[in-house]
């Protein structure tokens, strides 16, 4: 059943509609059933979640008899952004993930954000799938605000990701969808994986298996699932080392994503194509796993090149 959860009239013969696909068990009353919500496309340039939505619906429909709860799938929270390859909300240059929980009496996008929250609140778990951005590739991971870690880490461990990153509380992040829902007693996991404007099929399939596993744990799915990967859980800020470009240039990587590096290993070079010179070499400052690596080659001074997750030798 496909339903429009929010809509706004646009100036010239168009209605902006945010839609969800609800999958329910055949012939059962809905009262008392558990509900999982899968959300993606808040940033219009992040497409990894598109394939997850497709694959999840396909798997459920192929084995409908195994569905024992409600699955709500929202593939395009920012349909104008997805359609126009725009990260934010076109026409406003506004990051949609900075306007939650929205406002019933606010401007158009605040109103939509409020409608979205109203529809999602009450889910037993919500998964908000992001795809980094066009600059960085991420290993499948779940990011958790430390304020909500007790409740969320046990759920995240079932989602078949490689890494769970518990980060510090940040006031700015209070206007995200995840924070708004977690603050309203709706546990919400933020997945980051892959890269903007692309679909990494292997990551999408990995996460789909994880979602099915989580559904099984919650009593929403009785079909076969695979045992989830055991993710590395990082709770300490010192576990993660940021690598930033020292100067502007073109970044040429020397290693692969998720490679285990030793201190001093070459990660990549910043080159100057005009002069034909190597401007800088980026080397691993610690032993660790490279869980983020730069995808987009052009860098300014300060551009993020990658992130290393410290390997514990103790």
């Amino acid at each position, binding site marked *: 059943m496909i339903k429009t959860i929010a809509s706004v009239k646009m100036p010239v013969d168009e209605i902006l509609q945010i839609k969800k696909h609800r999958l329910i068990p055949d012939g059962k009353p809905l009262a008392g059933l558990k509900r999982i919500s899968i959300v993606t496309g808040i940033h219009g340039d992040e497409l990894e979640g598109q394939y997850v939505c497709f694959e999840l619906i396909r798997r459920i429909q192929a084995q409908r008899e195994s569905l024992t709860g409600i699955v709500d799938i929202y593939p395009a929270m920012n349909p104008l952004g997805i359609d126009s390859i725009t*990260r934010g909300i076109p026409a406003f240059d506004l990051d949609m993930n900075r306007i939650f929980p929205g406002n019933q009496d606010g401007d158009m996008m605040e109103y939509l954000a409020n409608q979205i929250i109203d529809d999602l609140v009450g889910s037993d778990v919500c998964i908000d799938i992001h795809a980094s951005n066009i600059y960085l590739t991420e290993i499948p991971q779940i990011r958790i605000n430390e304020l909500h870690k007790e409740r969320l880490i046990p759920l995240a461990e079932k989602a078949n990701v490689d890494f769970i990153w518990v980060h510090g509380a940040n006031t700015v992040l*209070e206007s995200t969808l995840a924070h708004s829902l977690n603050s309203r007693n709706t546990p919400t996991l933020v997945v980051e994986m892959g890269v903007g404007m692309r679909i990494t099929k292997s990551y999408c399939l990995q996460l789909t298996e994880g979602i099915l596993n989580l559904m099984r744990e919650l009593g929403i799915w009785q079909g076969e699932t695979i045992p989830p990967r055991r993710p590395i859980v990082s709770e300490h800020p010192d576990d993660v080392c940021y690598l930033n470009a020292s100067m502007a240039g073109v970044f040429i990587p020397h290693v692969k994503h998720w490679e285990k590096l030793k201190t001093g290993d070459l990660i990549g070079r910043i080159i100057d194509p005009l002069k034909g010179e190597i401007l800088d070499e980026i080397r691993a400052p610690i032993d660790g796993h490279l869980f983020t690596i730069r995808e987009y080659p052009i860098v300014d001074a300060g551009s993020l090149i990658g992130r290393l997750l410290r390997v514990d030798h103790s």
Partner: protein
Amino acid sequence: MQKKIIYEIKSLYRDHFRVNGYEFGDGKKSVCIVGSTRGNEIQQLYICSQLVKAFKLLEQENRIKEGHRILIIPAVNPYSLNIKKRFWPTDNTDINRMFPGYNLGETTQRIAAGVFDVIKEYTYGMQFTSFYTPGKFTPHIRMMKAGFENTDLAKKFGMPYVVLRNTRPYDTTTLNYNWQIWETHAFSIYTTTTSQIDKESAQTAIRSILNFLSKENIVEYHGHEGYVSLVVEDTDMVPVRTKSAGIFESLVKAGDEIYRGQLLGQITDPYEGEITEQLYSPVDGMVFFAHDEPLTYADAAVYKLVAHEKV
């Protein structure tokens, strides 16, 4: 006057990115004025250029009081101004969402940190800024309720309005908020326009700053004293919202006095030319904000009104 580079980074192919500052007087860090932080803030750039011109004259005529240092930064983001892009060219981040910055962080965090390092610890901080929705404002001073706001001080500008609003989560990374945290008396100054130059409201802003500095005994200025400012809470403004979408025509402009029941604007069907909606004022008052683009969405607050009486 001393022109100095506040922050500089090298680019691969463009000229160096430079943030320039103009310093007047000497002594303690007294007043810092920041103009455009985004690539479409042309009015904000223009006002600062006129302020630099005015302060050159004040300095020549010895009308800056001893012991006061005044810094004006017309543009924090010249790269974006030059390519007509609102935010940072490569990653579309907003420098005014990066304060206080981080000198080992990403590019715009570094710019914010480099600039903030210079402009913090001033007694007074004034920023010309803009709003994300398209429209024109009545000139006003906007203050966040961060716990340090002083409306009596804000009234000294002599702007028509002083607007108070609650702090939102994303405000904590703005220049205004961080100035306040560092004990600077911070004021956001809004004039009528952003991407177009409006000389009349620019002059109102320049006069208001000179008035304020005169009352604080920082410069000698004998111009028009301005308005007796009305302090308004953002939440007390009366929005007028559209029910339909289409071609928008406003019959009033920001600053106009309006009466209850007055026709403010109308929406026309973009294909058939029929009027689909007429927007009437629910109050006697004044137009504080008016949408100024020819198209509108439904559910858009195209006007914000200040009522003369409580509604």
